[in-house]
Structure formats: structure tokens, C-alpha cells
């Protein structure tokens, strides 16, 4: 088994499957598909992203929350699936936002989001610009670069070193915010598989009642997380 540089590690998929299998062996109601039955991220059919965008999203998520070190990464928690579903939903379409013109996309950032484009359109237009920048600056598409170069490229994107039209300037902040959302949101949204991110930090999820522990000062809470669907970890 060879792990390509910059590709989501196959070993991390395997690791995730083993960990999830342990979770799903608890005999309680599980309305969603067991982790073992979910398609691998490479076999997953995105609802919103095309194949090139999906390769980028997988590779970017794998650097924003990597799998090495302590705690699960964005890949084994299936954060890219979360982002794909969000793009296809109300968030991606800016369904709740005021999107009437006139627009002043280069306004003082303190006045907030001013792009005429909804987040899903921003991803769609910004990814190729960033990919071109990666090719010109680092000689290859983002997902083909080694991890260290990918981190340098993302840092340039974050710090404004990649020239984006003003209407795309929120791209990195959406990408990072959506990645963290997918990591920590309830698993029903597609990420945080097996509630691994909640286990990692010690958040008990949807338990919803801690009255008996309020005055138990400086003591580790003993129970692991539950999800909205009743899944436990």
C-alpha cells in the first residue's frame, strides 16, 4: 500500500474504519448507515463538487485538519462530505442572506460579506484560481504537492498572497470555517464520523443534562458523547 504525497492516506481510512467498527458494535439504534458501509471518500459521489474540485477539497481538508499526531483528521471524520452537502444546501446557496445589489465586493472588510456570489459559487470560482497559482508558483496542482508545500500554499491563500478578485476574497475563511464545522457538527451532517472529534476534545455532544455535575469542580466528566440520532461513542 503506497500513500501518495498529498493524498488522503489509505491507512487513515483503514484506521477510521476500525475505529468506527468498534463504535458501531454497540447494539443501539443506528438510523444512519454504519461507517463500514459508507463509500470511501474517493468513491463518494459528490452532490455539488465536480471531480477536480473534489480532489482539491480532499487534499485541502487533509492539511487543514491533518490525520497525523493526536486526534482524528478531517479525512477520517469525513469532513469533505459535510462540505459537499453544505454547498448543495441553504448555506452554499446563501439562501438566508441578503443578496440584492448594488455590490461593493472590495468594501472595507469591517462591513462584512459584500460579494454578489453565494459561498458555493465562491468555491467554484476560487478553486481554479488557486490551482493556477499552485501550478505557477509550485509547479503542480495543489493535490499533487507534498504536504509541506501544500501548507505553504494554504498559508499564502490565508494571508492574501494569492491574488483573488474581491468577490472571492472570503474563500479561505469559508473553507476553514466549513472544515471546522464539519469536524465538530453532529454526525448527521456527514462529518464528525463516529463522533471522533467530540471524543478527541471531550465534548459529550447531545447529552443535554449536566445538573448533577455542576458542582463537581475540576473533575473529568465520565460519559462519552451521544449524537442527536442516539449514536454513542
Amino acid at each position, binding site marked *: 500500500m503506497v500513500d501518495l504525497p498529498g493524498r488522503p492516506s489509505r491507512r487513515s481510512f483503514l484506521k477510521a474504519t476500525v475505529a468506527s467498527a468498534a463504535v458501531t458494535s454497540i447494539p443501539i439504534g443506528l438510523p444512519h448507515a454504519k461507517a463500514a458501509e459508507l463509500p470511501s471518500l474517493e468513491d463518494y459521489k459528490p452532490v455539488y463538487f465536480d471531480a477536480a474540485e473534489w480532489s482539491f477539497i480532499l487534499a485541502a481538508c487533509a*492539511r*487543514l*485538519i*491533518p490525520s*497525523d*499526531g*493526536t*486526534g482524528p483528521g478531517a479525512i477520517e471524520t469525513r469532513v469533505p462530505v459535510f462540505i459537499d452537502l453544505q454547498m448543495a444546501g*441553504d*448555506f452554499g446557496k*446563501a*439562501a*438566508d*442572506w*441578503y*443578496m*440584492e445589489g*448594488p455590490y*461593493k465586493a472590495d*468594501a*472595507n*472588510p*469591517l*462591513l*462584512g*460579506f*459584500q460579494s454578489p456570489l453565494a459561498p458555493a459559487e465562491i468555491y467554484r470560482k476560487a478553486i481554479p484560481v488557486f490551482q493556477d497559482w499552485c501550478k505557477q508558483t509550485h509547479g503542480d496542482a495543489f493535490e499533487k504537492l507534498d504536504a509541506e508545500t501544500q*501548507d505553504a500554499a*494554504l498559508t499564502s491563500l*490565508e494571508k492574501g498572497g494569492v491574488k483573488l478578485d474581491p468577490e472571492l476574497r472570503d474563500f479561505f475563511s469559508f473553507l*476553514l470555517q466549513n*472544515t*471546522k*464545522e464539519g469536524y*465538530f*457538527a*453532529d454526525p448527521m*451532517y456527514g462529518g464528525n464520523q463516529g463522533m471522533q*472529534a*467530540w471524543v*478527541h*476534545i*471531550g*465534548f459529550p*455532544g*447531545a*447529552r*443535554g*443534562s*449536566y*445538573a448533577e*455535575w*455542576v*458542582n463537581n*469542580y*475540576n*473533575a*473529568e*466528566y465520565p460519559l462519552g458523547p451521544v449524537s*442527536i440520532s442516539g449514536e454513542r461513542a
Partner: protein
Amino acid sequence: MARQDPRKDVVVIGLGWTGAIMSMELAQEGLEVLALERGDDRDTVPDFQYPNIIDELKYGIRYGLMQKPRKSTLTIRHGLDDTALPYRHLGSFLPGDGVGGAGAHWNGQNWRPQEPEYRLRSYVEETFGADIIPEGMTIQDWGVTYEELEPYFDQFEKVAGISGKAGNLNGEIVEGGNPFEAPRSSDYPMPPLPHTYDADLFSKAAKAKGLHPFPRPSANASEAYTNPYGMQLGPCNFCGFCERFGCLNYSKSSPQVCILDALKRKPNFSYKTNSEVLKIEKAEDGKTVTGVTYFDEKANEEVFQPADLVLLCAYSLHNVHLLLLSGIGQPYDPATGEGVVGKNYAYQMTGGTRLYFKDKQFNPFIGTGSNGISIDDYSISQIDFAKEGFIGGSYITAGQTNGRPIQSMPLPPGTPKWGKAWKEAAGEWYGRSMAIGSHGSNMSYRDCYLDLDPTYTDRHGRPLMRMTFNWKENDIRMTQFMKARIEEIAETMNPDMIASGYKKDGSQYDVRPYQSTHNVGGAIMGAERKTSVLNKYLQHWDCHNLFVMGASAYPQNIQYNPTGALGGLAYWSAAAIRKDYLANPRPLV
């Protein structure tokens, strides 16, 4: 051609806290009351029930219970020469809509302002001299005193079911309560909530410094309680999904939990949802209003609803917007200082310091909206404005409200925002920090105001409202003073690291990060018709059968969360209508 519906005695615009209070009080008079709510109907079951409400993404991050800017928003600019741009998605403040309004998803921090706050300009002039008021600061008196309002604060606290401990009972200072509060005629209806570890550490540190910690007054119930309307609350379970969420447990005071079921049983009360009022209609004589025109979303048509009495009970910003759109009262002009509608918009000056402890576990997910211990040692009544060089004050608190990880993941200063180091820091530090916060006043200024935007319109084609607002030196000095006080306390607690976040010299208003949904002013109350929109009874100076509730009445912002004061004001106004106005409708002043 608008449909016209049968006349009602009273039409209430907005069914949040003040709409529910006014509907109940006037329904008790036997009047036919109709409430019009622009948002959806909502109740504990099914809208706030477990487990679906315990969904951080849907409610905490995507703002499931908040107003949708696509349907309703405003434009914002920093100064008179700037072009305002739309507040396209929510950030700095989160107005609600739907039955219960923001009263469904608030924290439940329930305060009474201090005595000097109702007569701030007079207090400053008498105590320190008029010359300490900076050029351009337009603070005013409320036109009503604490003594007049006290019975109505008491009434609201009993309806809402507030947990706390009195510090000043009829002038007598009570150990363990807030010694700097205004005198209360009775104690809180419930004892204080238990508090979490962070609050306990803060309390001990404050006490050791000779300060006066007390339990934060809380609209999260500490025990089983039945209010004067027969509505019942149960003790809070510290689920950590309070602010931004409806309460799953009948513990957080809200219009739903405290008023609405009792109100809905009254045959002379009815309400319509998805019914946004577009305009309050003025009578030809200009001295009264005839009713309202609203958009009935289900019927997809405009409706004229005639009424004898119109009560404007929407969120503060929408109260002002509706007055401007309806042409009721003279709009404020910052160039001349004339006019009143939109004048003295103010916000809330907040800041905080986070303390990181390697060896302490705070279990931040154990929390509730108004958990904690506060001090009022640096409040408006306690500060020498002349000496310190600012007008204002703050209360200081520790008490965790939530550990929802998307929103609340404070990591030590210097931690990268992503990558392996971020992930590992999240695992290491999630439970190992606490905060001490400053919640402070914000004065009003000549060039901070609300008017109609010249460019942007809403889905009904009406101009959006335009907010002109920025931070001012006086209030920045106030918050920097609080930073120094909080850091002094924090140091005595021996944290491994601290990180402070306060507005500083040159800070500009940033609409992106959440700060506070305490937008006040714009339809202010006062002693004179030339300088205020409403008289002391919240009655419109020009149209006597129009009363305007809410924090839009505050001539500058108090140092406290606004709900306790607007609840008390609503009961005060209701009493004036019931005892005096109904028998003889006229200007009460």
C-alpha cells in the same frame, strides 16, 4: 387594494416579550387583542424539544431561530460621509423573529439598571459638572425614575421567574447579594442557581481583593416555580444549549414558558404569524393612528387591520424602522440635531480576558445562559467619571454558558488556526480555560443614529434602515479601564496564560464577529417632546394611541443586558394604559 379586516380594540406588532406582556395585560381588561408576528409560530414542543434542538450547526451557527437577512436586514456605515452597505449575513448582532422573538433564544441575564442610569445626564451634571461630557455625546435622562419603575421590575421578575439573591432589600444591604443594586421591594422569586467551577474561582479571587461577588441574576430557573399567570418553570439542567437556542426544559424564561399558554386560553386574544406589518397608518388629523397594514404571507396579500390602540412591540431596530417608514414623528437629522426618530442609537461595549490553566478541568459544556458570579464594583454608580476620564461603567462576570465546539474553541495565544498544532491544541485545551468578561455601557452620540437607506430595499420594496455607528474614545477608555481591573483579578488566579480582547484606541466597529444583540435607542423616551419620541409612559408624543415598547426607548445604553429593564418598562406602560388611558384616551403627559 388591501383586504380590510374587522376592527380590533388593540393590535400588537410582534409577539416577543413585550408583545406577550402587553397582550396579556390588555386582554385582562377584556379588550379584543390581536397580535401580528412576522415570523413563524414556535413553542417548546415541537420547536425546542430534545434532541433536535441540541444541534449546534443548525441553531448556533446557521442561526435557525434568527431573522433571515433575505427577508429583513439593514445597512451599516461608520460615519456620516460613508456609504452604508447591507448587513448581508448575521454577525455582530442576531435579531430574532417568530413567536417568542429574541425572548426565546436569549441568555436570560436579567438586570435592573442602577438609579443614576435613568437620569444619566442630570447625574453627570450634578455630580461631576456638565463640562466632563465630551463634545458630540448626546446622553439624556429617561424621564422616569427608578422609584416609579420599581414595582414593575418586581412584577416582571415574578412573571419571568428570576433566580438570584437580593443585595439591597428596601435599603438594607444583604450579605452575598449585589450591594450596589438599587433598593428592591422584595427578593428574587427563586434562590440563585448553582454555579460552575470558573465562576467559583472568580468569586474567591474577587472576594480576596475586597470586591463584592454575587450570583448573576438569572432567567434560568433554579427550582420548580409557578408564576402569577399560573405558568410553570422547572430547574435548569445546564445543558449548554441556551443562548441562540430555545429551551428544551421549560427552564429559561421566555414568552412561551411564562406567558403565552395562559394568554392563548383567553378568548379575546388571537394572533397571526407570518404577518409582517408594513406600515402603521396615521389618521388624517395626525394625532392618532388608525391601525396597521400588514402582509399576510399565507394569503399573499396586504391587509389593513383597523385598531383603536396600536402597540409597537417588535425588536428595537424594527420599531425604529417602522416609525420611519410610517412617517410618524420627525426623523432625526445629525447635521442640525433636530428631529427625534432614529436619534441616539447605541450598542454595548463588551470585552473579556481568557485564563488558561494546564491543571484545571472546566467541563465547558456544563453551562447555561446566565450562569455565574458577577461584581458591580466598577459599575456606573461606583466610578468617579471626572477622575477616570470617561462616562460609563460595566459589570464583570465569570460563568460559562456553553462549550459548543464550533463556536467556542478558545486556544492559547499563538496557536495556529489550522493544521496539526491546531488540532492537538483543541484536544489539549478545550476544557482548560475560563473567561472573565466585561459588559459595559455605550453612550449616545450626535452621529450614531438610524435613518432610511437611500439605495437598498427589502422584499416589499421598502427602504432598508441605515445604521450609522462607530466606537468612540469615551467608551474605549471605559473598556480599557475594565481590562486593567479584570487583568488584576486574573493575575491573582495564577493562570498559565492569559489572552485579552477589548476595543482599543482606533478600534472601528466590525460587523463580522458576534458582539451583542443589545441594539438600543432610536425611539427614545424622555421628558420633552422636542428631544424624544416617547413620553415617560412609552406613549408616542404625536399619536397618543400608539405606544412603543422595547430597548429602542433607551436614550443611551445601560451597562446591563436590556431585557430586565424593557420588561419592567412594559409593565409600567401597561399599568398607565389600564389605570389611566383606557378610560380617557389622550396624551398622558
